[in-house]
Structure formats: C-alpha cells, structure tokens
C-alpha cells in the first residue's frame, strides 16, 4: 500500500472546502486504519446442518484498501497473462481467475500461513495471495527458470511449500484427496491449522471427493472443502452436469455453507467461521457462488455456452472489485483519485514483472533430468559402467 489513507483523507479534506463541512461531524479517528467498520454482506448465508455466521462483518479501512489493491493486482495479472498467451509467450493451458478474486482475497484475510491451501489448475491468484511474487508467476508461465517451479511445472503447477500453498494440479478433482491428506498431516503434527481444499463445480461430481470427505469426516480431520462454483464445468453448465447443484448440501453428513463468492467480506466471514468449526468438528463444505469472466481456459472463448449479456451483466452487478471500490468510497477511506493511483501502481508492477520475466533465461538442458528422483539414502545407481556403489545406513 503506497500511502497512509488517513493522511490522504486529511489532505483531501483540507484541500476541498466542500468536504470539510461534511466531515466535521465525524471525528478523524473514525477513519483510522484499525477502527472496525461494520458492513453487512449483500446476501444472507444459506446453510446445511450448521448455524450460519452473522451477516455483519467487521473490517477496517486498511483491510478494505488491501482488498482493493490485492484484487486489482490479481485482475491485472490475469489480463496480462491473457495478452501474453495471445502473443504466444505462454503456451499450453492457461486458466484465468478473473472474476473470482474475492474468494482468494477474502480467504487470505481470514487465515494464516500455517493453514494450507490446495487447489486445481486455476491457481495463479491463489499463488499470489499466498505470498508468491509476480516475477515468479510470469516466469513460470513463460517457462523460464526463475519460475516458482523452475519452469518445469507451467500454469497448472504453481507451488509454494513454505507458505502453505500446495498447488496447482492438472487433473480435475485429484487435489481433493491430497488436501484431505494435508489435513491429516496437520492433525498428526497437532498443528492447530486447517487445510482449505479448493475445487470447482465440475470437480464436485468426482467420486474421489466423496471418498475423501468420508474419510475426513470419519477421522475428524481439520479439512474445509471449498467449492468455487462458477457455474460452468469447462463448457458444461452446472444444471447439465449436476443433478443436485446445491454443492454445499452434497456433503450430507458434513455441514455446508453457501456464500456469495463475489463479496469479499462474506468470504472472509465464512472462511474464519469454517476454520473455527473444522478445528473442532471436522470437515465442512463451503460453496462460493462466483463467476469467471474468461472461458474455462485460453482456448475456450467462453461465449459458446453462455451469452455475452450474462457475462457483462455479472460484471456490472456483481464485480468484486467494484464492490470494494464502492465500500471504500462510501466510507471515505480514499478518494477516486487515490484509487486510480493504486490501480496505476498495480499496472506498473505487473508490467515491470513481465519485463523482468521476459529477461529470465530458459532452464538449462541439464534441468531435464534433475528432480525426477531425490538422491537419497546414500545409494546411487550409475548405469552399466558403474564401478562400485555404497550403501549407507543413516
């Protein structure tokens, strides 16, 4: 965040005679960074087998500005990835997250780095939210060696182990058992942390999800399954793929909560509620009602199975960044000009990162064979001309 919002406000107020009057009734401390601001979520929570959390969410000016900045950065990053793909610098598959930023930003606000997140292939923004840098993102997308997976993973394989981000998986639904395994490890280590396993409405029909949920519920694992329901599984609409599109109810014995995924504060509230629940009572399902503006991936125009009117309608009425912008302006946390500055800064950051990533070299050819196996246990096999080998008992 570039500037102190309180300072911004003071300069704005003192330079604008019209504003001075309106704010004199309200003391400056009410727009202080850490004063709680109470906001009501746009929609109520729908719940299954659990009490829904309160609709009143407590936030602060600093947090709202952070949301704005982070989500805008994510949006810019995805748009930039779009144009990089079209100029053939990114190849293969590229699944963009724009429209869904509120899920990521809201979740990060409610959890810590010792909680784990695992997701499918739409992982660019989640990686950024977990502390990844733009340089790592763009380098990996372009297959350079400074990428987070050294250029060997690509768009679908972003990982950041030290910050609790476990990827980044290409096969739909395969991350759900992995996520329950992470939760198992957290329980084993008595970590007092939770794993958030994200999947889409398409993956919600995978059998392994229900298998994993069953085991997680039996063993009381601190696992939260987050369904990012953007209503389209690749090119198939939700109503054509799922007999029961109430994904939050599909857990049956596991409680569920349906959340407006375009409202970052609702997401934050639901996630912190879910974390508290999962630590004590085992798994539950969060369904985030969200939307993606792009198609399933860059090779999908996104308009053959839905109308452009629908897409622009959602953008006008439910866009998550617009929502935060309105909140910021309503509570006079920053002026439109200041938000514009934040946006410009984000754009510059993205452009700089792309320029840097373009300079990054391709991986060395020796990297083809590294990391296939871990050299361990002191035993090495050389091949047909090996002279001797040693075994070491550690």
């Amino acid at each position: 965040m570039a500037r102190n919002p309180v300072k911004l406000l003071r300069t704005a107020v003192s330079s604008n005679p019209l504003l001075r009057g309106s704010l004199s009734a309200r003391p400056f401390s009410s727009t202080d960074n850490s004063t709680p601001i109470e906001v009501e979520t746009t929609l109520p929570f729908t719940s299954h087998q659990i009490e829904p959390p309160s609709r009143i969410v407590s936030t602060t000016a600093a947090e709202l500005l952070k949301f704005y900045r982070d989500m805008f950065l994510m949006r810019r990053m995805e748009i930039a990835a779009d144009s990089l793909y079209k100029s053939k610098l990114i190849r293969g598959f590229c699944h963009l997250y724009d429209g869904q930023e509120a899920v990521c930003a809201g979740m990060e606000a409610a959890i810590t780095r010792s909680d784990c997140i695992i997701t499918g292939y739409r992982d660019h923004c989640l990686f950024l939210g977990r502390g990844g840098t733009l340089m790592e993102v763009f380098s990996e997308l372009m297959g350079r060696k400074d990428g987070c997976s050294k250029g060997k993973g690509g768009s679908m394989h972003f990982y950041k182990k030290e910050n609790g981000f476990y990827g980044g998986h290409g096969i739909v639904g395969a991350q759900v058992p992995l996520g329950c395994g992470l939760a198992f490890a957290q329980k084993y280590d008595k970590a007092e942390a939770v794993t958030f396993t994200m999947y889409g409405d398409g993956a919600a029909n995978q059998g392994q999800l229900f298998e994993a949920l069953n085991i997680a519920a039996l063993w009381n694992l601190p696992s939260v399954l987050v369904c990012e329901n953007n209503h389209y599984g690749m090119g198939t609409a939700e109503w054509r793929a799922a007999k029961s599109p109430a994904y939050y109810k599909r857990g049956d014995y596991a409680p569920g909560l349906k959340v407006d995924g375009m409202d970052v504060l609702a997401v934050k509230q639901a996630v912190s509620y879910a974390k508290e629940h999962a630590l004590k009572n085992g798994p539950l399902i969060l369904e985030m009602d969200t939307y993606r503006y792009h198609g399933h991936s860059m090779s999908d125009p996104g308009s053959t199975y839905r109308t452009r009117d629908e897409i622009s309608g959602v953008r006008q009425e439910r866009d998550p960044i617009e929502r935060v912008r309105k909140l910021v302006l309503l509570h006079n946390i920053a002026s439109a000009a200041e938000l514009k500055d934040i946006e410009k800064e984000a754009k510059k950051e993205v452009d700089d990162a792309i320029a840097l990533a373009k300079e990054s070299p391709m991986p060395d050819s020796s990297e083809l064979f590294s990391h296939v196996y871990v050299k361990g246990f002191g035993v090495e096999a050389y091949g047909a001309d090996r002279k001797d080998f040693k075994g070491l008992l550690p």
Partner: protein
Amino acid sequence: MASSALVQGFGGFSGLVSPFSSSSPQKRLIIGLSNLQSEQKKSFISVRSDASVSHFSNSVNRASKLVTNAVAVKGESAASPVSSKSGHELLLFEALHEGLDEEMERDPRVCVIGEDVGHYGGSYKVTKGMATKYGDLRVLDTPIAENSFTGMAIGAAMTGLRPIIEGMNMGFLLLAYNQISNNCGMLHYTSGGQFTIPAVIRGPGGVGRQLGAEHSQRLESYFQSVPGLQMVACSTPYNAKGLMKAAIRSENPVILFEHVLLYNLKEKIPDEEYICCLEEAEMVRPGADVTILTYSRMRYHVMQAAKTLVNKGYDPEIIDIRSLKPFDLYTIGNSIKKTHKVLIVEECMRTGGIGASLRAAIIENFWDYLDAPIMCLSSQDVPTPYAGTLEEWTVVQPPQIVTAVEQICQ
C-alpha cells in the same frame, strides 16, 4: 584397491561427515534425517557388486554377517549363510512386519494406511499388533476407497510424513493409478523440487492359487514407465525386510511388490539391523553358462529348474534383479560379459512387461557381448483363468525354463 581403502579409512569417522568430500557434491551421502536418536549406532555397509561385503561400524568392527545370497528353498545346496548361533528364523510376512515395526519405532513420521491394516491386523498379517502398539493415528484403517486414501497419503507425504500405503491386493491400486502416476511420481518434478514424496506403496500381487483374473494381476508393467517412481520386488524374508526398510527411508516414492504365494517362506535372517540397497540386484547362484534374470516368485521356479540343469551339466548364473525400476545394469552387465547368454524369466505379461524393457535395455547396452538372442519367458497374455490346470499354463513352469536353457546353450 583404492575404493575399498577409501571405505576403510572412513570407518573411523563419527559418521556425520561425508566420506566422499573430495568428489562432486552429487556423490555426497545425504544425511537428512534430523530426528534420529543420538544413541543410534551408525554403521556403514559397503557392498561390492560381486556380492562381497565389508561392514564397518563406529563402535565395533564386526565381521560381515550380511547375507548376500539367501535362498529359502528346501534342499538348496548353498549352506545357510547365517550361522546357527546368530539370526532368527521367521516367515516372509513376519520379516516385513519386523522391518515395518523397526522403522515405525525409529521415525515417528512413519505411518501405515490401508484397508484392514489396523484392528484386523492386516489381511496378510504384515501389520499385526501395530494398531495397539502405535495407535489409530499411525496405523490407519480406511474405508474401501483406494483412489482417495492413496491421494491422502501422498498429500500427507508432501508435508513430510512418510506413509506406507498398503493395497490389499496390488490390483486394487489400479483404482488409484491417477494418484500414483500423476501426483506420487511427478510432484517432485513439476514443483521444481519443492516437494518430496517419501511414500511406500506395497501390497501382494502376482498369480496366486486360483484367485481369478482380477486378483491375480501383476502391476509392475503398468507402473514401469511412470517417471519418478522406483519399483522393487522382494522374494525372500531377508530381502523383504531389507527392502522394506530401505523403501521407507528413501526420499523417493517406492513401490514394493510382494507376492501372495511367498508370504509363508521361512528363512533365518540376521539379528542386527540391515538394509538392502534399493537399486541392487541379488546374485542367487554364480555360474558360467547362462545368465538367468528373474524376480519375485519366478526365482523359485528358476531355482527348481536349476537343480535339473545342474544335474544335466549346465552351470546357470541366477540373478534376482530385485530392482525393477531402475534396473541394476551393472550386475546384469557383468554377468552377461561372463556368460554371453541371457534368459529372462518373469511372471509379468509378455506384452509390455518388465522382461520386454529389460530385453531392450540389455540389447542397448550389451549387444556386443551377446552370443545368442535374449530369451524371455513370461506369462501368457491372457486374464488368469480360475481352473487350476489353465492357471498353471499361464505362468512359466520349471520344465519350460529347463528347455529354454537347453535351447540357448546349444
């Protein structure tokens, strides 16, 4: 010789220093296990490829008690290598149990996950008594959901736990193929080295006694081309325990293939702790006429055939390849350079089996040393029938091995 001197000089070190500090970093022995108890003895084994062994330890320089060619076949001419004073006799499944028990005691991160492994004690009794000893969090009974519990174990391994996934029958792991291939094998690579998956996948496979087609599968051929996985097949109580321990300690995902019919083999194994090298083949019977490469249950068919062959005047060299991925081309190569003829006897299917890959690898590396085409005896490409006689004909039998050797040695 220079190499053995290097090892002997090393015997005096306290063990945390790499003996190969002069060579490239890649040759450094990795000692990454941080939760070892300090009173643990560190012993070092140097195993030459000709199966001679030197064994050193910090405290006492013990005479070699390593068994390098243990064969648990009745009436086998080779004397039992473990003297009657030391060692203890047990069955193969007990050896697996012992290895597993020792590793679980040694490292609290090791856990076992599978169907009926806990309260039931394991369908082949490999985990008998462990649930009471280690608790429900370390010996985990799962519902019948191979895909998800394999995935869960791999997810746990990503954080540093060391799970051992038991498939009640190897064939059931086909349900978890996606997890094993894409996540287990590939995550280390696609994450650029961030995650290691120190998981062990084990279970009985192979053709049993009239178990039917679905329960008589040999999965070695299906997994062999997955990059990132290591595969080993045990065949005696000695190597079962050794390979189990080595697989658990390895940082790579290892698939340990056991065989349904070998669980009741009895053998005497050493009392002291030992491991078997995961990438090493075992010299079962040194010889000069022909190299017979085999693994798992077929080793015993080969040994049986060997008795007939010896009576007929042949001198087969029998190698149990043990390491199915990667192949121990060094041992195999040395043998081929001696005998110039190869016969592969395997239980895998003919098409796309381990024998097929081994043949290709031998031709690529040792073509000049071959005097005859490589013969490969494998199971027929049919689903294993139920009828006893038909089942017998699916698998390679000793008379076929004898005929094959006679044919090669003409």
